[in-house]
C-alpha cells in the first residue's frame, strides 16, 4: 500500500472528512480542558460526568427525535444536574463530594441505559456508548466547531484566571478573582465538549480524548503553557492516527483514537526524561541505599 493510499485515500469519503475534522476540532479544545482536569485532580470526575449525560440524551431522543440540538441540550442538562446535584448532596448531607458524584453518575447512567433499551425507535445503544465516525453529520460538525472555538477563545482570553484558579485558587480569590465563575465555566465547557465528542468518541470513551493527551504532556513539561500546547499536539496526533487506524483495521473510531492516545501515554510514562519510569529507576539505582526512594 502506497503512502497515498494509506494517508489520503481514506479521506476521499465525505464521512471520513467529517469524522477527521470533528476529531481535529475537538482535539484543540479537549487537549486544553484535559490539562485542567489533570492538574485539578478532576480526572475521575470528568469520567463520571460523561457517563451521566446518557439519560439526557435518551430523553431528548424520546421527545425530539434525532435532532443534534435536542441531544446537545438534553446532555447538557443531565451533566449540569449531576454536577450541581452532587455539590448540593455533599453540602446538605454527610456524604463527601466524590462519593456523591459517584453515586449520582451511576444512577444517571443506569437510568439512561434503562431508558434507551425501552425506546420505541430502533436506536443502537452502542452507538452512543462507543461512538461511530460514520455518524458525524453536518450539524454535529458545526456543533464541534462552535464548542471548540468557544473553548479555545476562553482559554486565550482568560488564560491568567484559569492558571491562577488551577494553581492557587486561594490566591486567585484573594486578588479579587471570581473562582466560582471560572469553575462553573470550566464544568460547562467540559460538558459541552463531551457532548460534541459524542458522535465520534461515544460517551464512555470521549474523556480519553481529553485526559490522555493531557496526562502524557504532564509527564514532559515543567511549564503550564507548554503543557497546554503539547497536550493539544498529542491530541491531534492521536486522533488523526486513531481515525486512520479505525479505517484500515475496521475498528470503532472512539476505541482506536483512545488506543493511539494510550500508546502515547505509555511511551511518555516510560521514557519521559524527568518524570518517567526509566529515569526514576535510574535515579533509584544511582542513589545510596540510605536515601529515600521516590516511590516511598
Amino acid at each position, binding site marked *: 500500500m502506497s503512502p497515498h493510499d494509506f494517508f489520503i485515500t481514506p479521506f476521499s469519503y465525505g464521512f471520513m472528512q467529517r469524522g477527521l475534522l470533528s476529531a481535529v476540532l475537538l482535539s484543540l479544545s479537549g487537549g486544553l480542558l484535559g490539562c485542567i482536569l489533570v*492538574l485539578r485532580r478532576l480526572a475521575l470526575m470528568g469520567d463520571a460526568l460523561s457517563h451521566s449525560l446518557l439519560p439526557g440524551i435518551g430523553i431528548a431522543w424520546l421527545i425530539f427525535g434525532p435532532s443534534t440540538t435536542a441531544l446537545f441540550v438534553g446532555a447538557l442538562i443531565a451533566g449540569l444536574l449531576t454536577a450541581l446535584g452532587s455539590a448540593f448532596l455533599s453540602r446538605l448531607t454527610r456524604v463527601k463530594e466524590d462519593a456523591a458524584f459517584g453515586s449520582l453518575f451511576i444512577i444517571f447512567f443506569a437510568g439512561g441505559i434503562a431508558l434507551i433499551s425501552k425506546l420505541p425507535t430502533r436506536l443502537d445503544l452502542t452507538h452512543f456508548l462507543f461512538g461511530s465516525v460514520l455518524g458525524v453529520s453536518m450539524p454535529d460538525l458545526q456543533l464541534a466547531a462552535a464548542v471548540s472555538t468557544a473553548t479555545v477563545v476562553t482559554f*486565550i482570553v482568560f488564560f491568567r484566571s484559569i492558571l491562577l484558579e488551577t494553581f492557587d485558587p*486561594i490566591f486567585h*480569590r*484573594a486578588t*479579587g478573582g471570581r473562582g466560582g465563575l471560572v469553575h462553573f465555566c470550566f464544568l460547562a465547557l467540559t460538558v459541552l465538549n463531551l457532548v460534541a465528542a459524542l458522535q465520534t468518541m461515544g460517551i464512555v470513551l470521549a474523556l480519553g480524548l481529553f485526559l490522555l493527551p493531557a496526562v502524557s504532556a504532564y509527564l514532559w513539561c515543567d511549564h*503550564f503553557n507548554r503543557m497546554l500546547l503539547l497536550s493539544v499536539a498529542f491530541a491531534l496526533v492521536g486522533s488523526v492516527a486513531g481515525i486512520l487506524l479505525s479505517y484500515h483495521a475496521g475498528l470503532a473510531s472512539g476505541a482506536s483514537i483512545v488506543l493511539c492516545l494510550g500508546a502515547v501515554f505509555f511511551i511518555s510514562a516510560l521514557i519521559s526524561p524527568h518524570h518517567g519510569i526509566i529515569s526514576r529507576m535510574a535515579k533509584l539505582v544511582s542513589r545510596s541505599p540510605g536515601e529515600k526512594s521516590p516511590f516511598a
Partner: protein
Amino acid sequence: MPDATHKILRFRDVTVCYGRTAALQQITLDIPCGSSTAILGRNGAGKSTLLRAILGWHSLATGEILLGDAHPQHVLPRLAYLPQRQSIDWDFPITVRAVVEQGRFPSLKLCQRLGARDHAIVNRALDELGITEFASRQIRMLSGGQQQRVFLARALAQGADIFLLDEPFAGLDLFATEELSHILRAWETQGRTVLASMHEIDLTRQVFTQGVLLDTTLIASGPIARVLSPENIDRAYRQGRCVHDNPLHLARTTEFPR
C-alpha cells in the same frame, strides 16, 4: 509610642458567624502601620477567620473593617495574602519565575501581556528574596524555605503594602524558620505591615513586635511582651478544650528578652 503611629487596619465591633457559631465576637482592634503583628490563640480561636475577614471572604454579622478610610474589598491590590503551604500542588508544571509573575496578574487588563515594568518588578522581587538563581526551576526542586520565599516574592511583586500570612512557619525546618524570621524582621524595618497567624509562642516573641491574642473574643492586643503575659496566655488557652495539664509549661517558666 504606639499610640502616635498611624493605624492602618481598624476593626470596629467585628463579629463573624459560621451558622450559629460565632468565630469572632465583637473584635475592636487597631493594627499600627508598618508593624509586624502576630495573631495567636488556640485552634478555632478565629486566627484564620480574622485574616480572611480582612479580605472580605466572610460577611460580617456586626461591625466593620477599615483599611485607611476604605473597606478592604475595594483596595485588594494593597493586600497580599499568603496561603498555607499545604494548599499548593508542588508538582504543578510551573517555574519559580512564573509563580512570582502571578503577582503582576491582578494589575493587568484582560489579554494584556507582562510589560518591561512588570518584568523589572518580578526581577526585583526574585532578587530581594535571593531566589534569582532558582528562577527557572520547577517549584518542587526547592527546599521548604526556598519554596516559602517564592510565595513571599509573589506577594512583593503584587506591590502590596500589607501582608497577610496564614501560618507562615508551619512545616518549616530550623534553618528555614531562621531564614523567614530574618525576612519578616527586615520587612518591618522597611515599613511593611505584616499580619501573621502563629502557633509557636517562643518564636512569635522573637519575630513580632505586636500581638493579637484571640479566643473568638479579643483577649489582648498591643506590644508583644504585654500581650503574651502569663495571665493572658492562660485566659486564651486554658478556657479551651485543652486536655493537657499545662501545655504551655515552657512558655510560662522561661525568661524571654523583651
